[in-house]
């Protein structure tokens, strides 16, 4: 068993910042990550990182924009924290050497982004995430922080108290991918989950293949509620064969969307008569899919994004990056032909419920980054707001786990923060486990001694892995494929009661088939078949929470659109959807949105731009 003060699971932007923060506090910190840190998906972020750095801007404006962008489903204390801490954190990155783009006077550049009332998006070329990731990893190397890379964390070691709010997290069990050994990691102070996104729930996503929602799934099964899972952001311009993102810059420069009949559908079919191609992401995504559904898509799948008319010179000058992407990943030369594009899953606003200090309701368990929901994005994330989230909340979780007192949290967490249970949600099948004994919390009496709790987790994992390796059965890839397809068809940009129910049925079937999933590669060495099989279980749990949340919320807010409910219903729905795992079943309840900030209360308004 390895033992450290703080264990950080995941080494993307959030994990690295958390580890550095814990190290700053003097804690003995280790990172456990299934990919080497520089392989983390934070590296793919292009656009930039928001922070109020200049005269004329201030954190209050940033907070206001974010609250409005969230469609009033963000929690004010978390949003204000984001906006207040971001400038210092961004300067800190600069001091660590991050190669930001520069102005003539040598200061870091900022540019305007959608939904922001001030050009406060700081960037490093078109590779902001790459530089952010590498700069922080360099600091981890400098500090000699221990990194266990290519270790897959598959279970949290949590005590078995009945009430999740009494449970304590003492560490985790991880699978050493290179050797096949299952090892315990004991955390004297705390475990921080920073496992990133879960785009693999869908078959078409801008996310990496490793983004399988492991953190939220593990935390959820250990008793931490997941929050606002129905809010999934789709990006309208991704390449059909890979999901690689084509930046909104193309439309910003004048790129045009066409259907198979050569019509400029955003205008000709009246989706956005004013903004056209520049309408917001959800509007454009819905328009594209409507075209395809009505038979005006190309190959029944996508539409064209055309920038040829911009002229070769302008394209090379301003959008060169796009030429490489289209060429390398789709085999299309956008200077002479239009690019095929379709909507793709891009970001998950929901996740592990945390306070603005990164704490969950389980003592010693923290979460930060895309896997967490401190609730800064509400129902809709503004571009450039995920990266500051990583560093702001990564740092806070790291400091807190290492023992710094951050004061009392204003965002309540845990089942006791519930206002009302959801009752009467009509589901076609019983969601949750098929066998209630299939649980991830230690469950054999009063298991509370730290080392024992970790040993128990390791032993359970060993058993689970052996079972999967030994039996004959279904390959996970088939299950994963069906799950992804069902989510894309039924819980996508468009949501209808019937299709959501359909999705829940498929999810249930996937669970059934997963009961006898088998790993056919018998090897202990670098068994990716096994890893993908474990991930698939996580995808099933995550998919279920998304579909359940979406079925319950019968209104239209941010990224969540219901055909039969096309308005935002503030009277009824100004609240967070919470789902927790109790005795093998998801339980749905609600928690009010905190609209009260440090000094002012945010008043929900119509969102128009």
């Amino acid at each position: 068993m390895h033992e450290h003060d703080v264990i950080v699971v995941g080494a993307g932007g959030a994990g690295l910042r958390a580890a550095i923060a814990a190290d700053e506090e003097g804690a003995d910190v280790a990172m456990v990550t299934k990919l080497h840190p520089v392989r983390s998906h934070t590296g793919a972020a292009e656009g930039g990182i928001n922070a109020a750095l200049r005269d004329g801007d201030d954190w209050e404006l940033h907070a206001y924009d974010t609250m409005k962008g969230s469609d009033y489903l963000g929690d004010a204390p978390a949003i204000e924290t984001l906006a207040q801490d971001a400038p210092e954190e961004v300067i800190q990155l600069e001091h660590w050497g991050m190669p930001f783009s520069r102005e003539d006077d040598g200061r870091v550049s900022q540019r305007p982004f959608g939904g922001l009332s001030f050009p406060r998006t700081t960037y490093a070329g078109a590779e902001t995430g790459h530089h952010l990731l590498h700069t922080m990893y360099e600091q981890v190397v400098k500090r000699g922080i221990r990194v266990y890379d290519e270790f897959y964390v598959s279970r949290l070691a949590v005590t078995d108290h009945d009430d999740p709010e009494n449970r304590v997290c003492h560490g985790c069990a991880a699978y050493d991918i290179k050797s096949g050994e299952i090892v315990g990691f004991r955390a004297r102070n705390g475990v921080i989950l920073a496992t990133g996104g879960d785009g693999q729930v869908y078959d078409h996503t801008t996310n990496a293949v490793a983004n399988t929602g492991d953190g939220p799934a593990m935390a959820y099964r250990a008793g931490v509620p997941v929050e606002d899972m129905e809010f999934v952001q789709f990006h309208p311009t991704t390449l059909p064969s890979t999901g690689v993102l084509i930046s909104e810059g193309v439309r910003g420069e004048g790129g045009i969307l066409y259907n198979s009949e050569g019509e400029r559908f955003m205008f000709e079919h009246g989706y956005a008569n004013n903004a056209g191609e520049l309408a917001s992401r959800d509007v454009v995504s819905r328009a594209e899919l409507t075209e395809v559904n009505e038979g005006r898509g190309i190959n029944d799948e996508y539409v064209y994004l055309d920038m040829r008319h911009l002229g070769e010179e302008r394209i090379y000058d301003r959008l060169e990056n796009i030429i490489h992407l289209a060429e390398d990943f789709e085999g299309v030369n956008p200077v002479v032909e239009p690019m095929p594009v379709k909507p793709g899953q891009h970001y998950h606003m929901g996740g592990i419920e945390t306070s603005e200090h990164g704490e969950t309701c389980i003592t010693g368990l923290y979460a930060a980054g895309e896997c967490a929901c401190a609730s800064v994005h509400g129902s809709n994330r503004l571009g450039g707001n995920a990266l500051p989230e990583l560093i702001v909340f990564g740092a806070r979780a790291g400091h807190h786990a290492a023992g710094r007192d951050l004061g009392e949290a204003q965002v309540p967490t845990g089942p006791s923060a519930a206002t009302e249970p959801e009752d009467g949600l009509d589901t076609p099948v019983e969601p949750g486990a098929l066998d209630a004994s299939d649980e991830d919390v230690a469950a054999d009496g009063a298991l509370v001694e730290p080392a024992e709790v970790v040993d128990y987790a390791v032993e359970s994992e060993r058993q689970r892995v052996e079972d999967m390796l030994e039996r004959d059965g279904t390959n996970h890839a088939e299950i994963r494929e069906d799950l992804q397809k069902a989510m894309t068809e039924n819980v996508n940009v468009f949501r209808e009661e019937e299709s959501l129910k359909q999705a829940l049925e498929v999810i249930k079937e996937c669970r059934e088939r997963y009961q006898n999933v088998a790993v056919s590669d018998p090897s202990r060495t670098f068994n990716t078949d096994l890893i993908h099989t474990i991930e698939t279980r996580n995808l099933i749990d995550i998919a279920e929470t998304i579909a359940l949340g979406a079925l319950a919320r019968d209104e239209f807010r941010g990224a969540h659109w219901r055909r039969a409910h096309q308005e935002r219903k503030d009277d009824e729905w100004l609240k967070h959807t919470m789902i927790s795992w109790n005795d093998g079943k998801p339980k749905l309840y609600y928690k009010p949105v905190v609209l009260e900030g440090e000094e002012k209360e945010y008043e929900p308004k119509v969102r128009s731009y």
Partner: protein
Amino acid sequence: MSTQIQEPETETESEETSEHQQQRLADKRERADMRERAEADLSDADETVRIKVFRYDPEVEGKKDPRFDTFEVPFYKGMTVLDSLIYARDHFDSSLTFRHSCRQAICGSDALFVNGRQQLGCKTQMVDLEWPVRIEPLPHAEVVKDLVVDMEHFYDQMEAVEPYFQTNELPSGEEQRQTRENREKVKMSTRCIWCSACMSSCNIAAGDNEYLGPAAINKAYRFAMDEREGAEMKEHRLNIIEQEHGVWRCQTQFSCTEVCPKDIPLTEHIQELKREAVKSNLKFW
């Protein structure tokens, strides 16, 4: 206006006008033409591509002796080498092992030896290759299993150059200033994704296990040329790369530069460091 528009990545792209850049774009145009012709030759329907994949597992009977497995995968427009591997794994043999994650040339985990050249699987279009396509692990590295190689040595070399920013004069509450020219100077060097393709292609590195290698030297360049670190630190960095197994080993064969998927002018950077080192040594005469 949209709530979520990501701004054009215009600024930096327009800053890029080096010859290197022009060349890269000209190559792309040429390749696109070739590809169009190659695709015209392929009838879309029923086309399959054969891949021959290196297999090895130290643990499993029958796989202990390295061999090649052949898979016949359906071809489609836009298909990459990585796509073909994923297809083969998910449909024919789930034990087929390779690293990959981002599938957009930024995580650096799927550098492979494809038809005798180091390339990123995700960034290599099938139509650009001669078929059948032969896929092997990176040469000059220990094979862990199938296409997975041990990266420890590469990581060690990267760490050997003190790959982190070191500066003493920090203004409080605001950023250090850096000129646009200086950022431009280091820009290409900061693009490295640690894929190790360069190291694998380098004859010197193959013969001298202690040679820092192109990626690590490029990392040293990234910091040595950054004006924010100051003159003293630059001396220190030049000392590191001047060591016995440092820059002077490089014989300017350009193989690293040729394979780098991020188009980093590695050989140029190594040469420049050599010149800088000479200059700084002369100072003390």
